[in-house]
C-alpha cells in the first residue's frame, strides 16, 4: 500500500487529475471505434485536460477559502 501511495504521489498526487485523465483515456479509446470521430481525438483530449486542470484548481481555491 505504501509503495502504491509513493508511486501515486510521485506521478500525480491528485485524485481529480488521475481519475479525470483515466476517464478521458477510456473515452478516447471508445471514440477510436467510431470512424467518423477519429479526427476529433486530439481536440477532445485537450479540452478534457483543461477541464480537469480547471476542476482541480477550483478545488484548491475552495479548500483554501
Amino acid at each position: 500500500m505504501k509503495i502504491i501511495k509513493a508511486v501515486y504521489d510521485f506521478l500525480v498526487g491528485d485524485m481529480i487529475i488521475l481519475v479525470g485523465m483515466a476517464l478521458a483515456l477510456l473515452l478516447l479509446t471508445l471514440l477510436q471505434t467510431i470512424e467518423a470521430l477519429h479526427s476529433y481525438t486530439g481536440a477532445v483530449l485537450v479540452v478534457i485536460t483543461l477541464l480537469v486542470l480547471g476542476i482541480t484548481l477550483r478545488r484548491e481555491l475552495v479548500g483554501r477559502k
Partner: protein
Amino acid sequence: MVWAVAIASFLASAVEFVEAFTIVLVVGVTINWRSAIAGSIAAAVSLAAIIAVFGTAIVYYVPIDLLRLIVGFILILFGMKWLKKAILRYSGLKALHDEEAIFEETMAEMRARGEVTTRILPSAVALAFKAVLLEGMEVAFIVITFGSSAAAQGSGIASAAIGATVAGLLVLLVGALVRSPLKQVPENTLKFVVGIMLTTFGTFWTVEGLHGSWPFADAFLLVLAAIYLLASFAFITWLKGQQRPALAQQTAK
C-alpha cells in the same frame, strides 16, 4: 539530436538538481565535503544505471504505439502535477519553494546532531545520496519517458540524457562559484515551463499512441504548447481574481 527532448530534459533536471544541491551544500558546509561528494556521486551512478537499464529495455521490448500511449498518458499526469503547482504558486495560493529556508532548516538539524568530522561519515553520505537520488528520480523518469517516446525520431534517450547531464554540470558549476543556496534560480518559472512541455508532449504522444494524428504533424506541438500556455495564464488570472473578494471580505470582518 532531438532538441525539444534535450531542452525539456535540461529544464526539468535544472530544477531538481538545484533542490538536491541545497541539501548537498548543507552536508558539505556542516559536516564535510568528502561525505557530500561521495553520496552525490553514488546517487548519480545509481541514476545513470537506472536510466541505462530501464531506458534500453523499454525502447527495445515495448512496441512504439503502446509505448507512446502509456508514456504519453503518464507524461500528461506528471505534467499536470507540475503545472498545477506552478499555477498555484503564481496565483499566490501556494508558497514559493524557498531554497534558503530549506538550507537553514536542514543545517540547524545537522548542527543539533553535533556531527563534525573530516572523515567520510556514513549518515552524511546517506543524506547526500538520498537527496540526489530522490530529486534525480524525477530526472530519470523524464529522461526515460521522453527519450523512449522520441526514440523513433533518433537518439531520444541520448538527447534527454545529454540535456540532464548539462543541467547537472551547470548547477554544480554555479553552486561551486556561489557556495550558497541557489535562491536566484527562477524555480517556479522553470517548473511552469516544464509542466507545459510535459503536458504538451504527453497529449501529442497519447493521441499518436491511439493511432490518431495531428494537423501539421510535429509542428502542432507548438500550437498545443501555446494552447496550454494561454489556458494556464487564464487560470492564474482567474485564481488571483477569485482571491481578491475573499481577502476583501476578511478585511471587512
